[in-house]
């Protein structure tokens, strides 16, 4: 009927040059580059202290709970909501764990699952009001923030409770022992690094070859090689650095596994896809047969569980539960997600982006503390970085139009 017009749609475009490709994907790589620049800057400003094995280990331990919560928060924000209660839930779960372990001497193997289920229920209750009663998440979780802060004080009767038994402390301060028996450097750590990076490179190559088969690959080959070499190199180098200290912290493994699982869920599963659809256009999603209420409910329940996990790790790290634990964590977590490129209006955002966002915040906290910058100026700088990151994102979006 109209063959003239059909020719307008070109089937395959010529592969762009590396520079052009990078420019058009600035949004995807921008924050990663920013993280590397910030790390380089602090490495220089702190005379190399930042990347010292002991400090690096510390950096992971300090930020693990923020990253774990950022994963859950990403889903909440992609679904078009917000959760302000996570900081209080961290405090509450820490208190619950302390009461169970210290006051009632329950074994860790019981305390951990009970706390995770408690988090799941807390998230579920909040999610219920948000999903089925359509009460704005801001209000429900603001209420939750107050309620659980108050309950934390009640549980602890206003005092710090601790110390935890050794088995509980392992959650945070434990390290993967060296199965090869060398100890220092920890050969297991290096082996895990090599295996992980091999898996990542293998998966990337498989995706690429599939994409090539369909003629839908516009990533230049040089770029692909350099990118994966850098990622693999970075992972192995990090593991090597950590191996010269005490090896890989348990928390790092927990974090890595969670990142992998949730990246898979968001990229490749039906439920992940539906969360993006829900956040992108709730009405259209509903009319496409998606149970939007249940999905919203589940995202909050999941957030509650991850906040509980973070609460356990944080309590184990301090080795005590304090009434102030988790105070203002929600702000760091939300900032991390937005720095990582999620959209305020929902429907857009990636797990890896949120993780990078959390690391940017973490490296800045750590670097500035080493440099002896006061908490006052740290806050100012962090605030400005959050603003800049979002401006950068919006600017890139406008340029793309």
């Amino acid at each position, binding site marked *: *009927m*109209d063959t*003239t*017009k*059909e020719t*307008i*749609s*070109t*089937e395959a*475009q010529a592969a762009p040059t590396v520079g052009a490709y990078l420019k058009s994907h600035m949004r995807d790589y921008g924050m990663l580059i920013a993280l590397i620049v910030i790390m380089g800057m602090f490495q220089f400003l702190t005379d190399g202290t930042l990347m010292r094995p002991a400090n690096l280990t510390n950096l992971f331990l300090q930020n693990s709970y923020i990253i774990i919560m950022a994963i859950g928060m990403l889903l909440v924000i992609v679904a078009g909501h917000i959760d302000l209660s996570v900081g209080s839930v961290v405090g509450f779960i820490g208190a619950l764990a302390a009461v169970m372990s210290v006051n009632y001497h329950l074994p860790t193997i019981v305390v951990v699952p009970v706390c995770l289920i408690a988090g799941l229920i807390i998230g579920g209750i909040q999610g219920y009001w948000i999903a089925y009663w359509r009460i704005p998440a801001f209000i429900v979780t603001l209420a939750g923030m107050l309620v659980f802060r108050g309950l934390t004080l009640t549980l602890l009767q206003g005092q710090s409770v601790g110390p935890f038994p050794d088995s509980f402390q392992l959650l945070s301060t434990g390290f993967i022992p060296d199965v090869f028996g060398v100890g220092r450097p920890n050969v297991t750590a290096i082996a895990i690094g090599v295996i992980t990076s091999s898996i990542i490179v293998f998966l990337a190559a498989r995706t690429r070859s*599939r994409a090539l088969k*369909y003629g*839908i690959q516009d990533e230049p080959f040089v770029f692909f090689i350099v990118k994966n070499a850098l990622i693999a190199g970075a992972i192995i180098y990090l593991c090597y650095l950590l191996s010269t200290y005490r090896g890989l912290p348990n928390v790092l493994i927990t974090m890595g596994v969670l990142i992998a699982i949730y990246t898979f869920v968001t990229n*490749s*599963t*039906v*439920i992940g*896809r*539906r969360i*993006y*659809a829900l956040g*992108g*256009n709730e*009405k*259209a*999603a*509903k*009319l*496409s*047969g*998606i*149970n939007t209420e249940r999905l919203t409910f589940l995202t909050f329940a999941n957030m509650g569980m991850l906040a509980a996990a973070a609460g356990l790790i944080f309590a184990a790290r301090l080795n005590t539960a304090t009434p102030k634990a988790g105070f203002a964590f929600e702000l760091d977590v939300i900032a991390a997600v937005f720095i990582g490129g999620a*959209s305020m209006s929902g*429907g*857009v955002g990636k797990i890896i982006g949120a993780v990078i966002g959390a690391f940017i915040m973490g490296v800045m906290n750590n670097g500035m503390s080493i440099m002896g910058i006061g908490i006052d100026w740290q806050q100012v700088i962090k605030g400005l970085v959050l603003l800049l990151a979002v401006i950068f994102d919006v600017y890139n979006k406008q340029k793309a139009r």
Partner: protein
Amino acid sequence: MENIILEMRGITKTFPGVKALDNVNLKVKEGEIHALVGENGAGKSTLMKVLSGVYPHGSYQGDILFNGEVMAFSGIADSEKQGIIIIHQELALVPLLSIAENVFLGNENIEGGIINWPHTFKRTQELLKKVGLKESSATLVGRLGVGKQQLVEIAKALAKDVKLLILDEPTSALQENDSAKLLDLLLEFKAQGISSILITHKLNEISRVADSITVIRDGASVSTLDCQVNDISEADIIRDMVGRDIANRYPARDSHIGELLMQVREWNVWHPDSLDRQMIHDIEFHVRAGEVVGIAGLMGSGRTELAMSLFGKSYGKNIQGKVSLRGQEVDVSTVPKAIQCGLAYVTEDRKELGLILEETIQTNTTLANLERVSSRGVIDETIERRVSEEYRKAMRIRTPSVFQKVMNLSGGNQQKVVLSKWLYSQPDVLILDEPTRGIDVGAKFEIYSIINQLADDGKGVVMISSEMPELLGMCDRIYVMNEGRFVGELDKAQASQEKIMSMIVNA
């Protein structure tokens, strides 16, 4: 020689990778109604954005001459100062503010930094009289229907001392009689010496009011026709728009009507928020395999409410009635159940209810039936990609790849994505609510062909439309709806616009 109020000379506008406008010329005479026509995506809106300063001077090539002077607008405020006012397709009114507040929004009557409300209300009342809107200037805009809101927009333009009024598809959401009123108003303005540019898809409107016509195709001005000199037929305009003759606006189809597919009985629906308001009364209808059934009626007659209530109770829960598919009574009380039963509903409002605009064609295509491209909850992207690619080709969605975000597509292509989504859910019966609204002539023909193909494949199609010629051209049978009731049923052979109208009027 008549006075030329506006001349756009050799306008070229490029976006990264795309030449949206290529040497476009447009001349508007003082005091005329100038129609600007072209397919969706032809560049009409881009041209108007250049004119109104949304794309500032320097971001395009070519000249804009207004009253003989070269203009260099750096924003909308500049062009409005000159009296060039544009009314967009999507109305820019604040629903929770009053008519008066909206009319003078951004143009407030200020005395010493304070708004003079009595004066504002008085002037608004005068302006409302001019546009023929009988409402108090204190009424909230959200309470008005689309037709009246359109008039408020025009009053807003008049408040700014308009010299050239640009209307972007002003009647696309209006009922026949509201449209007629709006066109009369344009003629009245013409008598007062206000020039206007009318962007529209409706050719009958053009032949009614336009003095001259500029046709734009693929970003270039194809022709300018003077209606006073030549006798211009609709076929001429269509040929210029699409670059080909459409001998018949509706593709032919031999009906092969088969078994009874869907039957709806004693269908009653009440308003979701108030049980006192019954929206649908005792509706009974059926669709057979291979049949296209139309539902005609005015806007507000309850057609969309009927469709939404059938499709998984998407219109409140206060619904009674029975639905059978292939002779078996079925439960369609939730959207997933309705889809499971083989029902699909293509919504009237694509952007609000049909698509995830931020997502790709691929994601949107599979959204209503992700189970089919996944196993144990994990999506197989290779299959998904192949499926969406098949639909892209079958539907002739014009885009380089299925990874294009749907927000970047034209209206016609977006509608094809919505159709792809519902076809992939493998329905037996499709309810299409205004399937060609806001779509250009060429794409309409393609949508009609798709509908015919569906009927040939033995599916039942229910088509809701406000355009009667479309229903007459496409349907085997037409139900006429008025105020929540079916007031008549016509076979293709008996049906005519006059008969449908008289059924509505005499109901």
